[in-house]
């Protein structure tokens, strides 16, 4: 992406509003197109108390052909006496929206990589992982240390590759991985809990 007079913002975006005693994290759902990123947010929105979440927002271009991003804010529990807010975003998956993905990713605290388990989507998944790693490096982050949770979606489809293969290929065997059927909600909240644990871990370790 060309950049005009725009310093690269490095580091994470977690920010603290001491006056309101709020701490805000940014989590991005990343992955190939039609892999289930928006479906994850729709399920979370539908199955979280309205007291704890905001509206699910999808901002699109004028003709509604292109999705800029989905956005959902949820609030959960408390950390060190502060109210944590989690801003959940999706990125547009299509290859051509590289610049949009880069901007949405800017300042993320953690990523859920939603992969499509179908055999035919294997290379799309690889492209998504490569793109994610590239964006993290541009943000000044080490992709091997950045909080990422892997979700193998569409496990109910007959052409789904075995999880062990996906885990070995994408997650290096050592990252949190979850099987999911996001359209039915299976694995969605478990994935969310895992990425929340990942992004708040540095704060808990500081205590």
């Amino acid at each position: 992406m060309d950049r005009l007079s725009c310093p690269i913002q490095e580091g994470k975006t977690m920010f603290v509003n001491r006056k309101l005693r709020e701490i805000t994290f940014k989590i991005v759902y990343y992955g190939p197109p039609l892999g289930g990123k928006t479906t994850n947010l729709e399920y979370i929105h539908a199955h979280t108390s309205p007291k704890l979440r905001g509206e699910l927002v999808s901002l699109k271009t004028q003709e509604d052909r292109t999705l800029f991003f989905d956005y959902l804010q949820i609030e959960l529990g408390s950390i060190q006496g502060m109210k944590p807010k989690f801003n959940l975003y999706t990125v547009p998956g299509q290859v051509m929206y590289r610049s949009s993905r880069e901007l949405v990713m800017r300042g993320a605290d953690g990523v859920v990589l939603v992969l499509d388990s179908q055999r035919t989507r294997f290379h799309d998944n690889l492209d998504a992982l490569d793109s994610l790693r590239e964006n993290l490096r541009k943000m000044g982050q080490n992709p091997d240390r950045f909080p990422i949770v892997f979700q193998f979606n569409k496990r109910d489809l007959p052409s789904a590759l075995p999880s062990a293969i996906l885990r070995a290929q994408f997650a290096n065997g050592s990252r949190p991985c979850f099987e999911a059927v996001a359209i039915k909600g299976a694995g969605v909240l478990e994935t969310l809990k895992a990425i929340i644990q990942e992004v708040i871990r540095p704060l808990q370790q500081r205590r």
Partner: protein
Amino acid sequence: MTTTERRASPRVRRYHLVAFTHYDDEGGIQNQGLARTLDLSCKGLLFETTNPPDPRDRIILELQIGDEVLCLEGQVIHVELLPNRHYSVGVSWPEIPADIMARIEREVGDGSVVLPDPRREDHVR
């Protein structure tokens, strides 16, 4: 209702992805979000968001146009509730670097467009 643009710096309807950050006096992040622009001119822009900054806040904008990201500093001049319960946020910038202005001028063109009223129900989705 539509308005024919007669400003010195005409606005054109443009939908672009924009990130905004509001810093407090000590340089800490006060508010941060992603939005889409509703219109753009050489003097400022209007964007749509669900978590607006406050009027008079000074904010940093990262505006994506094609493969470019333009970094701008501006001031929030008004915030209005839209029919879809999102907010429209008007931002102006007093002066910006020449290279960025040139890019915005290319985007705005001659401004010979008819703008719909952003507060109307049929304008927002």
